[in-house]
């Protein structure tokens, strides 16, 4: 005979991975984020005719805009800000590994010189 027995776990002892279902943003919020992303993209495109004007600031500005857009999509559209932390860590692990490996590769080939 078998019985079904739920493990006893107090609510405050379930670990951070159990907070997977926090309230996700509303559709209105998603549209707002899309507008922000569109504005950031417009700002990126605006740097194209103004390359000479921006000079050495061009690349840092583009990289910052790129990272902000990346963060908005990952945090809100992919729900990393609201889902279980485990998902974030898995993704960050892949991202960080790739970044470290390929920065070393680029440095080896004297890309930054």
């Amino acid at each position: 005979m078998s019985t079904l027995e739920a493990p006893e776990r107090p609510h405050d002892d379930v670990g951070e991975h159990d907070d997977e279902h926090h309230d996700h943003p509303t559709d209105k919020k998603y549209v707002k984020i899309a507008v922000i992303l569109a504005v950031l993209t417009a700002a990126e495109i605006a740097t194209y005719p103004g390359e000479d004007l921006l000079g050495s600031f061009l690349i840092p500005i583009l990289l910052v805009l790129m990272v902000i857009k990346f963060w908005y999509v990952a945090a809100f559209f992919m729900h990393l800000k609201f889902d279980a932390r485990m998902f974030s860590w898995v993704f960050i692990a892949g991202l960080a590994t790739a970044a470290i490996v390929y920065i070393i590769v680029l440095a080896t080939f004297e890309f930054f010189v």
Partner: protein
Amino acid sequence: MAEVTIPAPVVTHDGHGHGTTTGVSNPKLGMWVFLGSECMLFGGLISTYLLYKDRIGDAGIAGRDVFDIPFTSVSSFVLLMSSLTMVLAVSAIGRGDHRRTRTWLLATAMLGGVFIAGQLYEFTAFYREGLGFTTSLFSSAFFTLTGFHGVHVTVGIVMLLSLYTLSLKGRLPTERAESVEIVGLYWHFVDIVWILIFTLVYLIP
């Protein structure tokens, strides 16, 4: 007779237990692991492009000679907006609104199709200007990177249309909303990769 005790699935405090040892959905975790590994793939392709972008060979055709930034900007905007329609599809199926889910899934697939059509047009234009896959190290790296991304978008479109068909046949109930969310994760990742490509390949001189 000996009594066998089978532990019941862990039910979280908010009632959304997944019955897994991690407490999170295995398919969703699997998709995140896959996306983590995809970072390595695209990292390699982007690094290769960065290393070879100045190796334009005898043809002498550099990226800036052929890139049509206004056209690619529109393509980028289309793909970015497809992320909005995708997240709206995920939101709609979460509410059990299947009609809207289908609308947003189809809109996402169509926007993805527009992006791919734009990429094919761009590739054709480059070829006509003398930039083929084997013209130079730069062209090989460029076509490999953007081509791989295009293949990912195409696979995403196939998945979106599959979900659309399933929903039409009534085989995508609200209980299977996670399937839409998982395809959504893939789609947003493809969008994120394009955010990187657009900046690193097209905009940075």
